[in-house]
C-alpha cells in the first residue's frame, strides 16, 4: 500500500515536471524585454523557494534534535534525519539557484554576478550549509549529531543578519542598474506556467527530500544495529 502510494506520487511528480516543462517552454509567451532567455525564471525561482523551505526544515530538525535527545531518543533521531536531509537537498537546490542565476544575469544584464543583498545572502547561505555538511563529515562519534544541530541553529541565525547587513551595504553605495527584478509585474499569461513549475519543482524537491530522509533513517538503524551487536559481542566476553 505504502509502495503504491509512493509510486503514484512519483508518477504524478514526473507528469507535473513534464507538464511544467511544456508550459514553460511552449505555452508561456516571450518576455517583452528579454525574449526567450527569461524562461530560466521557471527553474530559478522555484529552486530558490524549495531551497529556503528545506533549510527551514533543517533548522526545525536541528532544534528538534537538541530538544528531544535526552528524553525521546527515537524522535531525536527522526529530527536529525530531517536536519541532514533538509540541509543536503537544500544545498543541491541552492547550487541550482547559484548556477542558473548567473547564466541568466550574463545574458539579461551583461554581468555574471553582483554583490547585492539577495545574491550575497544566497551565496553565504550556501556557504553556511556546506560548512554544516562538512562538519557532519569530519566530526566523529556520537556527538556529531549534537554539534551539527548547534551549528545548524547558528547558521540559520546568521542568515537574516547577512541579509540586513548587505541591504545596508548596498543602499550606501550605488547599486548596478538591473533590468527590473525577477517576477516584478509578471504578465497574466506567464503566471500560469510559473505556478505549474512551482508546483512541479516543489513536488520533485519533496520527493528527493523524502528519499534522502528514508536513506538516512535506514543508515541510522544500521548504525544502531551495529552498535548493539558490538555491545552484545563485548558482553559475551
Amino acid at each position: 500500500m505504502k509502495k503504491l502510494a509512493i509510486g503514484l506520487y512519483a508518477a504524478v511528480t514526473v507528469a507535473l515536471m513534464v507538464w511544467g516543462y511544456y508550459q514553460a517552454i511552449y505555452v508561456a509567451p516571450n518576455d517583452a524585454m528579454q525574449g526567450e532567455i527569461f524562461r530560466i525564471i521557471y527553474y530559478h525561482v522555484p529552486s530558490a523557494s524549495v531551497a529556503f523551505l528545506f533549510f527551514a526544515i533543517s533548522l526545525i530538525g536541528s532544534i528538534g534534535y537538541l530538544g528531544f535527545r535526552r528524553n525521546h531518543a527515537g524522535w531525536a533521531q527522526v529530527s536529525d534525519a530531517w536536519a541532514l536531509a533538509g540541509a543536503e537537498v537544500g544545498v543541491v537546490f541552492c547550487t541550482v539557484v547559484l548556477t542558473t542565476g548567473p547564466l541568466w544575469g550574463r545574458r539579461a544584464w551583461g554581468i555574471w554576478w553582483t554583490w547585492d543583498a539577495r545574491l550575497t545572502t544566497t551565496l553565504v547561505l550556501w556557504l553556511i550549509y556546506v560548512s554544516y555538511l562538512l562538519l557532519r563529515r569530519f566530526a566523529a562519534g556520537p556527538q556529531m549529531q549534537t554539534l551539527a544541530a548547534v551549528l545548524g541553529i547558528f547558521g540559520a541565525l546568521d542568515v537574516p543578519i547577512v541579509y540586513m547587513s548587505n541591504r545596508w551595504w548596498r543602499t550606501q553605495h550605488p547599486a548596478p542598474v538591473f533590468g527590473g527584478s525577477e517576477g516584478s509585474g509578471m504578465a497574466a499569461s506567464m503566471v500560469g506556467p510559473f505556478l505549474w513549475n512551482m508546483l512541479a519543482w516543489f513536488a520533485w524537491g519533496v520527493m528527493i527530500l523524502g528519499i534522502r530522509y528514508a536513506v538516512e533513517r535506514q543508515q541510522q538503524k544500521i548504525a544502531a544495529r551495529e552498535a548493539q551487536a558490538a555491545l552484545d559481542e563485548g558482553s559475551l566476553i
Partner: protein
Amino acid sequence: MMPRALWTHLVKDLRIELRTLDALVSMLFFSLLVVVLFSIAFDPRGVFSQQIAGGVLCVATMFASVSALNQAWAREIRHQVLDAQRMAPAPGAELFLAKVIANFLFVTVVQIILAPCFLIFYNLHIVGQAWLLALVLPLGTWALVGNGIFFAALSIRSRNRELLLSLILFPIFIPALLAMVQATTAILTGESDPTLWIKLLLGYDIIFTTVSLLLFDVVFHAE
C-alpha cells in the same frame, strides 16, 4: 565582581600564555606577513591605500586570530584536561567566556602593536573620528573571537580540526567582517558615517555571545 570560576579560568589562561607567549608571537608575525602580502598583491598608493587599509587590517586580524584560535583548546585536549573540566561543577559557560576574554586580549594586543606598522606601511592619515576605531576594532575582534572559540570547541574531536574551524567560522562571520571593514574604511576615509555599522557590530556581538553562552554547555557535554 566576576564569578569565581570565570576569574580562575581567565587567570590560568593568561598566566600560561604569558609564560610561553606562543599565541602572541605567532599571531603578531602572521598578521605582519599578511599585511606585507596584501601590500604586494594590491600595491597601496595614495588614495587607494586609504580605501583598502580598512579591509586589509580586518582580514589580517581574521587570519591572525585563526592561528590563535586553532590552539585555543589545545591545552585542554592534552592530558584529558577537558574531561576534568567537564566533571567540575563550574558552569561550562564561564570556561567559554574566560577563553573568549583571554583570546580577545591577545588579539587586541596584537592589533595595538600592529596599528603603528599599519599607519606607516600604508601612509595613513585618519580623516574621520579616530577614537571610533577604539570602538570598532574591539567589537569586531569580540565577534571573531567569540564565535571562533565556540566553533573551535565544536571541532575539537573532528579530524581536520584546524581546517574545519576556518570553514565553519568564516561564513558565519561574514556580516561582522563586512561591518568591521565598512566602519574602519568610513573612519579612515571620512567619506561616510560608520554609526550604522557600529550598531550592526554591537547587535551581532550581543546576539551571538548570548546564543554561544546558552548553547556552550550543550557542545561541551556532547557525548
